[in-house]
Structures are given as structure tokens and as C-alpha cells.
């Protein structure tokens, strides 16, 4: 049995566009080891986000097998196993930064003092200790993404999936967010799968992959 934290074998996904069948993924094989950081690059429309959706269990593959920590992937385990960061942050506008971070813990039950302390600590580690009571609308793009990173890490996931997390940020802020993601994952021993267009960001990960014509290759 493999030690991989995530293992995908022969993952395939096709969409129908009118009468046309578009094969986005054609049997992708991927393994991510504990604590490893992997980047996935590819052209627009190459299927990077589709692959990430399959890996996160948000979407189901037409064929292939997916395992999380050696067990078949199941949606119910997602909240504990995975953290996700998206290009568009997706913070809940009605609640402040602290409550947004804590939301991940609420999904698993009523958050206690431990979860609250961890949320506070994570906000401090992403440099937003002073902005905890601010609403998303009162934060800059970079700050919102840092809140999203803190939220993704709150439940101590074993794998963090980041789908173009710098896509809506300027270069400088984007660099800072990537540095933060990588350092936090290193510190916490969380594996990272980073989907990005940015070659410089991809090179900062321990393994670089390239998605082309529905297949993954070393980039």
C-alpha cells in the first residue's frame, strides 16, 4: 500500500457541449505524499480546476479511482481531510474575519475554546490579528485571501488544495500569499496541491506538474 496522502488512478472526465463530447481529463494518475507541495500548471481550459474538483471530491470522475489517505474518497470526510482555497476567496460577507475562519470548525460541530484559540492563532500567523473583527468588505483582496487560507487550515487538514489563489491579486500580494501558503503548510506538515498559471509560484513547490491534453506530466 502506498504512503500517499492522496492517490488518483486513471481519473477521466468529459463534458458534453451540445453534441460534442469534450474529454477534459484522460486518465490522470497522481499521488501526493504527506507534507509534499505539488504545483499543477496548464493552459486555460486544460482542466486544472476540473482535476482539483475531482481531487477534492466536489465532482465525480467518469472513471478512475480516488483515495484519501489510503481510503476511498468520500464527501463526508472532506471537511476533516481537506482544506480548500479558491481564486475568489468566497468569504461570507455577513460575518467578520474571525467568524469566517471559525466557520470551518462550525461545520464539524460547535467550536470550543480550542478551535477559537486556533482561529485566533491562525489569523495572527497570516498577519491579520488586528483585523479579526473586520468584515470581508472592509478587507483588501490580499487580506481576504489570507483569511481564506487561515480558514482552510483551521481543521488541521492533511491536504490543502489551492485553485489559483493569486488569480485575483496583484503580483506583489500574490507572491506574499504563496509564500504564506508554503510556509504554513511546511510548519503544519500539510500537503499542498497548488493550481497556478504562475511559473515562479509553481517553482516554489517541491514537485511541478503540467496538465496538457488531459494528461499530467512533469513540468
Amino acid at each position, binding site marked *: 500500500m502506498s504512503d500517499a496522502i492522496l492517490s488518483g488512478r486513471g481519473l477521466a472526465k468529459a463534458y458534453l457541449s451540445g453534441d460534442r463530447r469534450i474529454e477534459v481529463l484522460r486518465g490522470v494518475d497522481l499521488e501526493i505524499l504527506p507534507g509534499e507541495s505539488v504545483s499543477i500548471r496548464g493552459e486555460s481550459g486544460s482542466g486544472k480546476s476540473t482535476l482539483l474538483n475531482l481531487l477534492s471530491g466536489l465532482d465525480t470522475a467518469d472513471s478512475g479511482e480516488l483515495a484519501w489517505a489510503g481510503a476511498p474518497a468520500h464527501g463526508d470526510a*472532506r471537511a476533516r481531510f481537506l482544506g480548500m482555497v479558491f481564486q*475568489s476567496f468566497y468569504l*461570507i460577507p455577513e460575518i467578520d474575519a474571525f467568524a469566517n475562519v471559525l*466557520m470551518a470548525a*462550525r461545520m464539524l460541530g*460547535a467550536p470550543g475554546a480550542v478551535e477559537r484559540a486556533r482561529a485566533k492563532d491562525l489569523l495572527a500567523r497570516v498577519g491579520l490579528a488586528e483585523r479579526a473583527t473586520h*468584515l470581508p468588505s472592509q478587507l483588501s483582496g490580499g487580506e481576504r485571501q489570507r483569511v481564506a487560507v487561515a480558514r482552510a487550515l483551521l481543521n488541521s487538514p492533511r491536504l490543502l488544495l489551492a485553485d489559483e489563489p493569486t488569480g485575483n491579486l496583484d503580483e506583489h500580494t500574490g507572491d506574499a500569499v504563496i509564500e504564506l501558503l508554503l510556509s504554513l503548510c511546511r510548519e503544519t506538515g500539510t500537503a499542498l496541491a497548488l493550481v497556478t498559471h504562475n511559473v515562479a509560484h509553481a517553482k516554489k513547490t517541491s514537485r511541478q506538474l503540467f496538465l496538457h491534453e488531459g494528461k499530467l506530466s512533469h513540468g
Partner: protein
Amino acid sequence: MPWYLYLALKQLFPTGRRFPFFTAISVLGVALGVAVLIISSSVMGGFGHKIREMTVDTQGDVQVRGDGLIADPAALQVQLMKIPGVVATTPFAEGPVAVIYQLKPQFPGLQGIDPNRIGNVIPLNRYITGGSLAALDDDSIILGSQLAIALGARLGDKVEVYSPLAFEKLRMSKGDEVFLPRELRVVGYFEFGHQALDGSVALVPLRAMQDLYGLGRAVHGINIKITHGLDADVMAERINAALPSPQHLRARSWIEINQDFLFVLQFERNMMFFLLMFIVVVAAFSVTSSLLIAVVRKTREIGLLGALGAKPRQVAACFCFQGFFIGVAGTLVGLGLGFGVLGVRDNIIEIFARITQSKAALLRFYQFSHLPSYTEPSYLVATIIGTIGISTLAGLLPAWRAAKLKPVEALRSE
């Protein structure tokens, strides 16, 4: 608190916003519906209650009548008083007469009562608005207030009374035989607050009525007062079981006697309640509409919740709870508003009457200067349960839509 309840409350009362506009408008819509329901059903209930009270006050709780006349009322009264639950009895005789004053005729129903015992069964003194019941003797009459106005008769005036028997005597009189009508002095007025009674009933002592109708010692019926709190229908059944059957007597409760009228009252009230419930339904539709817009606006957030591990039924519960909360809050505010308005209803009527200069008309046609109000517990419970139920249902459609969203598609939506 489960996350979906927490988020529902946060969506209703967002952090940092002093006035949650959507919540306030939704709650107000439901509250107005509840307030209108409470006010209308309470006022209708007040009228009904007043009419029931007046009916019991004029007829007693139970009435015993025979196929014909009751020949020995005294003996029957003794028998009735032995039945457990019977508090007091009073005999009566009744029939139409012609009353003439200064050539102005009226044709009221004349009630022969026992002035000494009627107070034990019917609180007649409460309704005497001029003169006194104590002054009623064999040569006097108490007129309904509207009847007195129609005749133009005042206290101390003498009116002529013709019974059917008198007309018969008049018809049979021969030659120079002169027939004189019975002259009765007006010694009082009563006002029950009901046009039909105040305009067409007059009271005389039982002996006078027996003379006018040639009844001898017989009466038409016995009015009965029962112990407070006992069911009038049950008591009527008990009395019927105890009555001697050869006399063909039958006891009927005031509810049975007036069942058609009471049915109309109840039907009218139920229909009004049913129709006004649509205000709540309309308010609920606006809640549905607002929540549906929220679901569309928050599609990507709903996708995020799915990505964080939310189950479809939890997402549905989040929106359903918002409908439920709006229902509960709207009901509480509506109850406060409704009972508040009911508390100052007389002031409102006073202002309305002053503006429209219609106080006299209100008194004349509706016979009230104080708007009656009685909130029946069953209507109150139906309003509360109905409103909260409808509001919760209003959240179901948006909840269903939200639950149907697939996270991956929701996150991708523009």
C-alpha cells in the same frame, strides 16, 4: 448552535449592520398580517361575546316550554329547583300586542314577567336606563328604549294596550256596548343595546299579561338560571330527563334556541379569519421572493459551504430557519401591535367618529360606543401556528433550491 442556524441568524442580522432592512421588512409584513387577524377576530369575537351575553341576559341559560300553555307553573318551578345545577327559575308569558300612544301605534311583543323573581334569573336591572323595575305593577309597563322613542311616550305617560283577546272582544261587542283598552303607565325604559329587542319589546307584570291574553294562571314558559360554569346544553338534557313527560315539556339551552344565529356569527367570523389569513400568505410570498433572491445572490457562498462539508439538508435548514424565524418574530411583533391597537380601540373609534362626525350613526346603527373585544384562545392559537407554519413553508422553496445546488456548479457560477 449548529452552523446552519448560526448562519441563518447572521444572514438575518448581519454583523455590524444596525438595521437589517430585509429582516425588518419581512417581519413587518408578517406582523401586519397577524395584527389585522388579531384585531378583526377579537372585535368580531367581542361582538359575538356581547351578543351571547345579551342573549343569556334576556332568556336565561335554559328555557322550558310546552306544546301549549304550562297550566301550573308554580308546581313545575318547584320540580325544576330540585334538579342539581338549577339556581333559579322565573315564569313568563308572551305575545304580540298593539300599543297606542297619542294615536301612534306600535306592535311590540309583550313579555309578562315576575318582577319579584326575574332578577334571580335575568339581570334586568342592569339594562333599565330610565325609571325602575321596582315600580312595575299591574297597571304599568316598561318599554324598550327605541319603542318609547317610536311612540313618543315618556315616563308617567299612559299608553293603550290591545291584545288579540281585546280585539276579539271588540269584534264581538254589540250595540252600544263600549270596549275600553287596557291603559298602562310607563314606569321605565330598558336598553339591551340590540335594535330588535329595544324597538319591539315591552314588559308588564305576569298577572297583567295573563289578563290581557286570558291565560288564567298559565304561562308560556320558564326561564332557568344554572350554576355558573355548567354547560347549558348538558343542563338542558339533564332537565329534560327530569321533566314529567305527559306535559310535553321541553328544555332548550340558549345555544340551541339561537343556534341559527350563532352559526351565522361563527361562520362570519371563520370566513373573515380565513380571508384575512391571506394577508399572511401574501407576506409569506414576499419572504419567499426575498429568500429566493438571497439564494441566487449567494450561490457561490452556498457552493463554498458545500466545499467546507455542508450537507444539502443543512443548507436547506439554513434558509428554512430564516422563514421560521421571520414567522416567529412577525407573530410576536404582530401580537404586540394587535393587542396594542385593541388596547386603544375606543380612542381610535372616538377619533374616527370625530373626524367623520359619525358618533351618532355608530351608536344608532351599531349600538355601541365602546368597541367590544374578546380574543378567543382557539383563534389566537390558530393565528400563531398558522403564521409560523406559513412563514416556514415560505422558506421551503428557497431552501429546496439552495439544497439542489451542486457545490462545484455553484462555485463556478457567475
